[in-house]
C-alpha cells in the first residue's frame, strides 16, 4: 500500500510521503499526538489565559497586560530571588549529591547498601512535614537547636534562623540533594571502571581521575540532574512560603499563588504570564545544556564485558562513611525524629507525659477517606509510573538514539510540563479536561488525574532514561539489529535491559512524585477519586498536622520497602551485566 501511494509521486516528495505513512511515521505521529494532548493542549489553554483579560468561558478581551506586568520592580525582584535561590541550592546540592553518589557507587565505604537507602529518604517525605519539623528545630526564638546552643554557651544569640534566605535554600536542598543523588548514583555504578583504571595507570592522582574521568563522563547525567533540580527549584513552593514569605522573601510560585488564591478576583492572566516567563528562562537553560553536550560521546557501557569494582580508600573510607552519616543525621534523623516523637503526643512540640497518645495512629487507621485515597493513589501511582516510564523510554530512545524527523519536536513536547510551575499547569489541566467534549469521559474521573500525572512525570522519565541510553554504545544495538532483531525487540532486550537500573529509579521517582502531587490533584479530583495529597491537605488545614505526620511516616515505611526491593533488583541486574 505504501509503495503504491509512493509510486504516484515523483522523486523526494513520494519518498517523504512513503516514509510518512510507514509504520515509523505513524508511530511518530501517534507519539506527537499523545504528547501534544498531554502537554501542548493544557499549555495552549494557559497561553490563551495569559493573553486574555478573563479565563476561558468568560467574555473579555485579548491584551498583553499580563506580560506587561512582568516588568514591574516587584516582579523583577521576585524573578531575581527565584533564580538566585534556585541556583545556589542547585549548585550546593549537585556538589553534595555527586560526592555522596561517588562514595556509594565507586568506593569501598562500609555499609553502602544501607547508606544508599538512608540518604534518599528526605526526598520522599512531604515537604510540609519537614518544614514543620525545621520550624520547630531552627526558629530563632524557641527552636531546639538554638535552645541547646544557648544552654551550652550561655549566649543570648541564635545560631540558626530558618526564616531566612539560608533557611529557604537549606530546606530546598533536603529534596534536591537526594533527587540528584538518585539520578546520578546508578550512572556512577554502571560506569566501566577500566576508564578510571587507565587514568590511574597513566599516572593521574585519585583527584585528577575523579575530576577528569569520572565527572567528565557523568556530564550528561549530572547536567540533566542539575537542570531538573534548578527548574524544580524555580517551581518550589513549600520552602519559600514556609520560611521566606514571613520575612518578605517572595519567589515566583508565592507570587503566582497570591495572584490566584489571595485576591478577591483571581488574576489568572498575571499568573499564567509569570508561568510563561519562567518557561522562557528554563528553555534558555535547556539550550545551554544541549550546547554543552552536543557532539560529544559519553559512552561507558560497551559490548565488552567488565566487572564493576570499587575504589579502595583505605582509612579514608571511614571519613566517607562519616560524611554519609552526617548527611543522614542532619537531613533525616533530626526532622524525622522530631516528627516521630510528635506523632506520639497530642500536639507537635509539647512533650509532656500527660499528652502521650496513640490517637493520631488510631484516627488515621479509622479514617475511611484516607484509605480510599490511599487505594486511589496506589492505583494511580503504579499505573501512572509504569505508563510514564514506558512513554519516557520510547521518547528518550527516539531523541537520543535516532535521527528520525520529528524527534526534536517530541523532545520539546515531553519537556514542556516540567517547565511550567505546577500550580499554573494544574489550571491548564482543569481548563483543558473540563472543556473536552462530554463524550470523552476524562473530566471528573481517575483518568484526568492519571493523564495529568503522566504528563508531569514524562520529563523525569525522559531525562532518566536518555541519560542512561547515552552511556550505552551504539554497536550493541547495531549488533542486535544485524542479528535480525526488530525495533521493539532491540529496545526491549538491549536498551531497556541495559538501562534497567535507571528505569527502576525513574519509576520510583515518578511513583512518589504522584503520591506527593497536589497542585493538579486538588483541581482535578472528584468525589470518590480523592488522592493522598488532597486528604493530607484537608487534614493539615483542618488542624491535624500530627495525623499528617503519621501518614508521612507511613509513606517513609513504603519508601524503605520500595527502595529495598529496587536495590536488590538493580544489584541483581548489575551482577548479570
Amino acid at each position, binding site marked *: 500500500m505504501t509503495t503504491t501511494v509512493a509510486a504516484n509521486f515523483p522523486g523526494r516528495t513520494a519518498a517523504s510521503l512513503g516514509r510518512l505513512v510507514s509504520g515509523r511515521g505513524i508511530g511518530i505521529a501517534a507519539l506527537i499526538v499523545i504528547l501534544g494532548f498531554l502537554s501542548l493542549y493544557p499549555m495552549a489553554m494557559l497561553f490563551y489565559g495569559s493573553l486574555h483579560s478573563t*479565563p*476561558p*468561558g*468568560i467574555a473579555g478581551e485579548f491584551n498583553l497586560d499580563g506580560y506587561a506586568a512582568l516588568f514591574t520592580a516587584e516582579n523583577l525582584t521576585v524573578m531575581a530571588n527565584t533564580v538566585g535561590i534556585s541556583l545556589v541550592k542547585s549548585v550546593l546540592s549537585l556538589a553534595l549529591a555527586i560526592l555522596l553518589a561517588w562514595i556509594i557507587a565507586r568506593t569501598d565505604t562500609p555499609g553502602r547498601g544501607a547508606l544508599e537507602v538512608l540518604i534518599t529518604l528526605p526526598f520522599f517525605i512531604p515537604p510540609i512535614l519537614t518544614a*514543620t519539623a525545621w*520550624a*520547630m528545630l531552627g*526558629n530563632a*526564638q*524557641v527552636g531546639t537547636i538554638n535552645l541547646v546552643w544557648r544552654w551550652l554557651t550561655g549566649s543570648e544569640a541564635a545560631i540558626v534562623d530558618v526564616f531566612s534566605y539560608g533557611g529557604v535554600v537549606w530546606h530546598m536542598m533536603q529534596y534536591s540533594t537526594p533527587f540528584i543523588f538518585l539520578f546520578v548514583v546508578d550512572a556512577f555504578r554502571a560506569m566501566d571502571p577500566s576508564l578510571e583504571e587507565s587514568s590511574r595507570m597513566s599516572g593521574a592522582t585519585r583527584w585528577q581521575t575523579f575530576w577528569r574521568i569520572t565527572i567528565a563522563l557523568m556530564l550528561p547525567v549530572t547536567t540533566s540532574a542539575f537542570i531538573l533540580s534548578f527548574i524544580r527549584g524555580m517551581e518550589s513552593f513549600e520552602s519559600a*512560603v*514556609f520560611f521566606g*514569605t*514571613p*520575612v518578605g522573601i517572595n519567589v515566583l510560585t508565592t507570587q503566582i499563588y*497570591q495572584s*490566584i*488564591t*489571595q*485576591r*478577591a*478576583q*483571581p488574576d489568572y492572566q498575571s499568573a499564567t504570564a509569570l508561568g510563561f516567563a519562567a518557561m522562557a528562562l528554563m528553555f534558555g537553560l535547556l539550550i545551554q545544556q544541549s550546547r554543552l553536550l552536543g557532539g560529544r560521546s559519553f559512552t561507558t557501557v560497551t559490548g565488552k564485558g567488565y566487572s564493576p569494582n570499587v575504589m579502595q580508600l583505605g582509612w579514608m573510607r571511614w571519613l566517607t562513611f562519616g560524611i554519609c552519616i552526617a548527611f543522614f543525621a542532619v537531613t533525616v534523623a533530626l526532622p524525622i525524629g522530631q516528627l516521630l516523637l510528635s506523632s506520639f503526643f*497530642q*500536639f*507537635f*512540640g*509539647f512533650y509532656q507525659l500527660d*499528652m502521650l497518645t496513640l490517637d493520631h495512629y488510631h484516627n488515621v487507621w479509622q479514617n475511611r477517606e484516607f484509605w480510599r485515597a490511599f487505594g486511589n493513589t496506589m492505583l494511580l501511582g503504579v499505573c501512572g509510573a509504569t505508563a510514564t516510564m514506558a512513554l519516557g523510554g520510547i521518547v528518550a530512545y527516539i531523541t537520543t538514539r535516532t535521527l528520525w524527523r520529528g524527534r526534536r519536536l517530541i523532545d520539546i513536547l515531553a519537556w514542556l510540563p516540567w517547565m511550567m510551575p505546577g500550580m499554573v499547569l494544574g*489550571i491548564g489541566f*482543569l*481548563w483543558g479536561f*473540563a*472543556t473536552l467534549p*462530554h463524550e470523552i469521559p476524562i*473530566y*471528573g474521573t481517575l483518568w484526568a488525574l492519571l493523564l495529568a500525572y503522566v504528563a508531569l512525570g514524562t520529563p523525569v522519565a525522559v531525562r532518566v532514561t536518555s541519560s542512561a541510553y547515552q552511556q550505552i554504545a551504539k554497536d550493541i544495538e547495531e549488533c542486535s539489529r544485524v542479528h535480525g532483531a526488530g525495533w521493539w525487540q532491540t529496545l526491549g532486550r538491549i536498551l531497556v535491559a541495559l538501562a534497567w537500573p535507571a528505569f527502576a529509579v525513574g519509576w520510583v521517582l515518578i511513583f512518589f512524585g504522584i503520591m506527593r502531587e497536589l497542585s493538579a490533584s*486538588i*483541581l482535578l*479530583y*472528584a*468525589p*470518590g477519586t480523592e488522592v493522598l495529597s488532597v486528604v493530607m*491537605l*484537608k*487534614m*493539615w*488545614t*483542618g*488542624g*491535624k*498536622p500530627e495525623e499528617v505526620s503519621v501518614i508521612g511516616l507511613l509513606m517513609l515505611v513504603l519508601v524503605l520497602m520500595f527502595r529495598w526491593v529496587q536495590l536488590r533488583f538493580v544489584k541483581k541486574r548489575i551482577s548479570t551485566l
Partner: protein
Amino acid sequence: MIKNALAILAAFLALLAPAAAQTDPEWQKVVDAAKKEGKLVIYTATLGSAYHKTVFKAFEDKYGIRIELLEARASEVRERVRIEQAAGRFVGDIHHNGSTTTWLMMRDGNLQPHGGVPNVKNIVPPFEADATRIPAEVISYALLINRNMVKLADEPKSWKDILGPKWTGKILSDDYRALGGGAVFFVVMYDTFGKQFHEALAAQKPVFSRDIANSERRVARGEFPLYIPFSLQDYGQLKSLPIKPIVPQEGRPYVRFDLATLKNAPHPNAARVFMNFYLEVDQQLVFANAGYNPVVKGAIERVNEDLRPLLATKALGTTVPERQDAMLELAKKIYK
C-alpha cells in the same frame, strides 16, 4: 413584662417553625422530591472541617440522601464551578463558601435562586438571606495569647492595646495583604479605627504567615506571645494548650459563610432541603460548640460555657466584597 412575653412567644414560634415547615404539604412535596433525587453534591471551601462532616452525616441519616463532597480552597472551588459551567457541565448542587466569593459568583451568574427555605425566618440580624444566598455559619476573630508569656495584667483589653511598645516584634499574624482572616481584620480595623491604626501596627513589625493552623501552635509553643486574628472555631482543638483567646472590648471582626444553589443544579430539591436542615437549631449548635457563631436564634443560649462568653460578644464588622481588592492594595502599601 410585655416585652418578655413577646420574646417568649417569638422563641416558641421559632422553635415551632421547622416543625411547621416539615408538616407543610407544599414543603413535604419538596422533601419527597429531594428523596427521589437521592443525592446531593456539595462544593465547599471548608477544607477538612470535622464539624461540617458531622452535619452532613446527620442530613444523610435523616433524609437518606447521599452527599458527595468536593472540598477545596475558596478560589479553587470557584474556578472549578466556573469552568464546569462554562463547559456545560452542571455537576454541583450546593456552593458553600465565604461571603465574598459567593457574592462574586452570584455576580458572575454561577448561582440560581434557591426557591424558598422555611427556616430562613429563624435567621438573626445582622445576618439575612436573600433569594439566592443563605447565611450558613460565621467565623469570628479574636486575639490569641500565650498564657505563659503574657501576664494577666498585660493582656490586651482593646484592639488598640497591641500598638503598645511591649508588643513590638512580638506579633505573629495572618497576612492582611491576602484574602482570608487577615484581610477581614484589616478592613474591620480600618473601618473602626482608621488608617492610623494600621500605620501604627505596621510599625510594630508583625510577622506574617499564611499557615494559620501552624501559626496558632507557634504561639502555643512560645515562639510568639500574640497572634491575630485568631479564628474562634480553632479554639476547641487547642484548648488544652497554654493559650487564651481574647475578644477585645470593641468586639470581634467576623466573616460569614453562605450556602447557595449552583446554576442548573441536578438535585435542586435536595439542595433546598439541605439548606433548611442546615438552619435547624441542632445543626447550628454543632457549629456554635465548635466556635462558629450561629446564624439562627436559639443556638447561642445552648452553646458550651467556655465558648458562650466569646461568641456572645459584639459583632464589630466584616468585609464588603465590593471594596475587597481596593483594601488588599491599601494593605500592601501600608505593610511593605
